[in-house]
């Protein structure tokens, strides 16, 4: 484990537009005097706002009792003098003690309420964190690994590196990477407790004890700066409504000179023969459907732009096609069947699509399966693998 950079300095800011006072990092002063400027900023924010002040502590990694009492005192005093405003403390479910500590303020003054932030971070979260996604993830990794085990060394993954797999899902990629590349340390983070429980069960069943599975929000990680040689984030930027925010975090935890590796799709380019037209129509609709829920499953070819904008250099982009010819075509068909279940069976229904649309939508998936299993058929799913180096 890293033994450097113990104390991350804290940061506080007030955004008058969103009426949000945010404090992040490690706040462990010896006396309240050391944080007097921040306390004054909070008091100033209270003077300025109308109606509600959001107190954002979701990126607060540590706060000692000295600081907590100082901030609590300001909020509680304000409740007594300003009955016209209320305070919403926004915590993270990842940092459990913040929720516990700040919840006490509501017991003292009902004007202070506590909200847990993560549960509403991105609109499609409920779909991808649903356990019905587990079979998709499992089969997908099996299919993509055939390609990625050869691709990853081209992007810099070597044995003995410290590695993080962010948005690890059910942890199967971390297991495969651990076995193939023997990292010195591997942390695997995800925001689905069900997926993590599955991952831990699998690891335990195989006697694997050296993968550090951790619950976390990829956009607000507890992991420290510049810790990892190689950071992977697969099929995930495309399902966040703010991929740039996520990429900023990947950049932050990567060591200077290390690399961040991402994979994403361009769903409208899924293809098949025979029945190409029906397949094409459905996958164009998949892209629109995800877009409705603020997810961009067309992100793959945009990887270079995102990496450049996030500050990476030495960018490598390549694409590969998972097909029905990779091993057992039934594996490919299983992936498509799972997509049909979630995309047509859940997401389109939630969007309020009429039955006739859903029928046609389903047909494209079934035709894709038909193409995959046809003795002369061909079915493909294109993926873009990209990586960038964090400058030294």
């Amino acid at each position, binding site marked *: *484990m890293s*033994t450097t950079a*113990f*104390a991350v300095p804290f940061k506080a800011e007030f955004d008058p537009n969103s009426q949000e006072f945010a404090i992040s990092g*490690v706040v*462990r002063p*010896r*006396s*309240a005097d050391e944080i007097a400027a921040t306390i004054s900023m909070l008091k100033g924010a209270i003077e300025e706002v109308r109606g509600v002040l959001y107190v954002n502590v979701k990126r607060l*990694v*540590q706060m*000692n*009792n*000295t600081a*907590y*009492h*100082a901030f*609590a*005192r300001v909020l*509680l005093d304000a409740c007594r003098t300003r009955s016209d405003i209320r305070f919403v403390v926004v915590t993270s479910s*990842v*940092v*459990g*003690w913040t929720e*516990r*500590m700040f919840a*006490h*303020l509501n*017991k*003292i003054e009902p004007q202070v309420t506590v909200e847990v932030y993560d549960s509403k971070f991105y609109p499609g979260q409920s779909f991808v964190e649903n356990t019905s996604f587990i079979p998709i993830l499992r089969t997908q990794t099996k299919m993509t690994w055939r390609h990625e085990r050869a691709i990853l060394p081209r992007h810099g993954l070597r044995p003995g590196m410290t590695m993080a797999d962010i948005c690890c899902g059910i942890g199967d990629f971390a297991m495969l990477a651990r076995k193939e590349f023997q990292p010195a340390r591997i*942390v695997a*983070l995800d925001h689905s*407790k069900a997926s*993590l429980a599955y991952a*831990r069960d699998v690891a335990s069943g195989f006697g694997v*004890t050296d993968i*550090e*599975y*951790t*619950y*976390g929000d990829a956009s607000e990680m*507890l*992991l420290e700066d510049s810790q990892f040689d190689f950071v992977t984030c697969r099929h995930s930027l495309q399902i966040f409504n703010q991929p740039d925010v996520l990429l900023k975090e990947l950049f932050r935890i990567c060591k200077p000179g290390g690399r961040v590796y991402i994979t994403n799709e361009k769903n409208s380019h899924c293809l098949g023969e025979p029945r190409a037209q029906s397949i094409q129509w459905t996958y164009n609709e998949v892209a629109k459907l995800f877009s409705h829920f603020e997810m961009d499953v067309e992100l793959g070819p945009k990887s270079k732009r995102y990496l450049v904008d996030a500050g990476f250099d030495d960018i490598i982009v390549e694409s590969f096609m998972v097909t029905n010819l990779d091993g057992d075509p039934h594996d490919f068909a299983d992936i498509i069947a799972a997509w049909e279940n979630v995309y047509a069976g859940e997401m389109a229904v939630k969007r309020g699509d009429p039955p006739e649309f859903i029928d046609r939508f389903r047909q494209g998936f079934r035709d894709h399966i038909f193409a995959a299993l046809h003795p002369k058929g061909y079915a493909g799913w294109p993926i873009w693998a990209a990586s960038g180096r964090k400058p030294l």
Partner: protein
Amino acid sequence: MHGAENQPTEAAFEPLLQFEMEMGAFLSDWNHCDQLSTFMARMISHNRTDPVRHSNFFSSALNELLEVSFRSGSPDGRIGCAVYRWGPTERVELTFPCPPGQRQFYREAVSKTRDGDAHARYLDSISTDLAPSREAVLLDLSINFDANVRLDESDPPSITLVVDLPLEGVVR
């Protein structure tokens, strides 16, 4: 909070990690509390179910204990901190010099963590105290970290705060 009847036998706790240093050296820099708690938390959490979050929780609790010993302010003697594990619980034994005049204070403060009105006392402290007292810090551990706190005075002039933290159950 946990009753004494739920406690394992002393022998059940396995040693994980400990440090000892001169009080004078410890008191030379406030940041020692943060640095030691962060380092020890990382070391002992690596094989917990969720190492990152366990470390964050544990560091938070240990830092408060170290700050308590820092504020006791006695420069003579040594400070020692040992961490043990039994199942889902880490035990912190923090030993530091305590002037005779402060012993009664610690006895009472520890005792209050077990009182039925501990929660009300804690809320009162948040509501009225300008700065947290050491009593409030121990209440915080008891209430927010489900800690069981007791005092060992068998090695004067030092005292030992023995704090059981069932964090593996809290970090789910």
